[in-house]
């Protein structure tokens, strides 16, 4: 776990306000676990002050390259979007606990459900699962057709259904509408997106699974207790009543935390 100035090797807007950035550096070789995140300093000075947690979307060990996809929403991410190829970026990471892969054996089936900017970490997961010989089915939810990204990339890895809230492409409705219509024979689900979606996905799921949470963070390393969530009664981690999203998560077994 280190802080490194990574070199930006590319940046493009792949959907309205959605940016894909690639970065190169030594610390990329430690980014082997899907679902982890990097904590990014978007300015050199003290304003904006805090780092931004951004999930790891893909890693190429051959090219020593990290891919992140983020939405330029606030001041920090807009500054990030203004960065150019060959600029450097102060990156702390990888941080957090990612998606566990060993729960799925070769030949089993995983359902991946992502919504909006919750989709990127599922891509690295999908690649890792496919490499293990796990069948990957993906449901990606967007507001409208022009917001769609990563569809082609996921299609190369397995079956995919896209949903749009306005019905402009794919299934009309939410990801859970697609879940209810589709084959329910999967062994585990993995989901990332807004909390109401996570709740609905967990309720609609036909198996156990894993959810990835996001929260406003301070340190990103488990010290400041800014990003905690309540642990559910049934789960025990030395009897602790809470989990730190940055360091115990962001991925949790569905049911481990109250969402």
């Amino acid at each position, binding site marked *: *776990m280190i*802080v490194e100035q990574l070199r930006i090797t590319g940046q493009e807007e792949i959907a309205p306000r959605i940016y894909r950035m690639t970065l190169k550096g030594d610390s990329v070789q430690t980014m082997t676990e899907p679902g982890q995140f990097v904590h990014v*300093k978007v300015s050199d000075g*003290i*304003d*904006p*002050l*805090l*780092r931004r947690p951004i999930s790891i979307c893909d890693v190429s060990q051959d090219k020593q390259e990290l891919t992140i996809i983020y939405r330029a929403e606030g001041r*920090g991410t807009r500054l990030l979007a203004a960065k150019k190829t060959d600029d450097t970026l102060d990156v*702390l990471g990888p941080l957090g606990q990612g998606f566990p892969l060993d729960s799925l054996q070769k030949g089993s089936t995983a359902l991946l459900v992502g919504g909006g900017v919750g989709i990127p970490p599922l891509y690295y997961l999908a690649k890792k699962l496919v490499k293990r010989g796990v069948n990957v089915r993906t449901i990606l939810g967007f507001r409208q057709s022009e917001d769609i990204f990563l569809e082609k990339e996921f299609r190369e890895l397995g079956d995919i259904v896209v949903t749009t809230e306005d019905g402009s492409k794919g299934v009309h409705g939410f990801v859970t509408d697609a879940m209810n219509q589709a084959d329910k024979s999967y062994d585990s689900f993995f989901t990332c997106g807004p909390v109401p979606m996570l709740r609905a996905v967990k309720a609609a799921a036909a198996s156990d699974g894993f959810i990835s949470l996001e*929260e*406003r*963070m*301070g*340190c*990103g*390393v*488990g*010290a*400041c*207790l*800014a*990003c*905690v*969530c309540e642990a559910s009664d049934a789960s025990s981690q030395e009897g*602790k*009543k*809470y989990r730190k999203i940055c*360091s115990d998560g962001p991925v949790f077994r569905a049911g481990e935390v109250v969402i």
Partner: protein
Amino acid sequence: MINMNRELPGLSMKNPVMPASGCFGFGQEYARFYDLNKLGAITVKAVTAEERAGNPVPRVAETESGMLNAIGLQNPGLEHVLQHELPWLEQYDIPVIVNVAGNTMEDYIYVSETVSRVKNVSALELNISCPNVKVGGIQFGSDPAIAAELTKKVKAVSQVPVYVKLSPNVTDIVEMAKAVEEAGADGLSMINTLLGMKIDINTGKPVIANRTGGLSGPAIKPVAVRMIYQVSQAVDIPIIGMGGIHTADDILEFLMAGASAVAIGTANFVNPFACPELISSLETRMAELGIDDVESIVGRSWKTCSSVSLSSR
């Protein structure tokens, strides 16, 4: 040779830099980044008699060159700290300061007495300035008579020196400082966060679930410097200065204002290596400026020339 050593009540420090309470957990997270023995001392997160769950999220919000937090003194409680956190720190050869908080005077007295008997605890820091809890905390830090009474009672039971952490959210911080000094405090730490708020204009509601939070970071530095400047001239006990320190020059500024040592808070979140990097850059800056002893610049901003040992290059 630059002398970075500091001798404060209960604290024999090889440099003047320590992490601030609440910004460093109990040390374990940052021990993964560097050897904690590099620190002058360590101040651990506030300990209360019982486990505290803290406030709902969101607990932090970024502001201009600063941040608001309302963690709400979440901590695993005295028993857990005694059994797990403090023993873990025994492997390090640095002074340990335990920040103590509570709802009632009895809570403070009980926790203080118990913690002060732990062999690797060097000093206590009385948290009478947390702005983010409904009872306790700031209640004891806004009335000089109550702060003095609490200090006196804790001093009567503590086996180690007691530092009182002052709130900037008072009309007259000098009066508070003098009151706790007279009550027997061995030192002061200041400042805690400034009470603030941020509103999300899309929802029209405060960003932080607790509505208000404590402002920290570089934004509050001038307030801290001013208060340390005023208080250090009015009391004879040492001050651990804090409030937005981000660079070695900031540390020099705090020392010159009158602090005898400094604590680093929010900067740890921005850069996990903040403390060790500040320690080494402080030494570099002192060499560049021809300062050969930290002690020589403490209070330089207000001491008369004859009482300041000016070194020449």
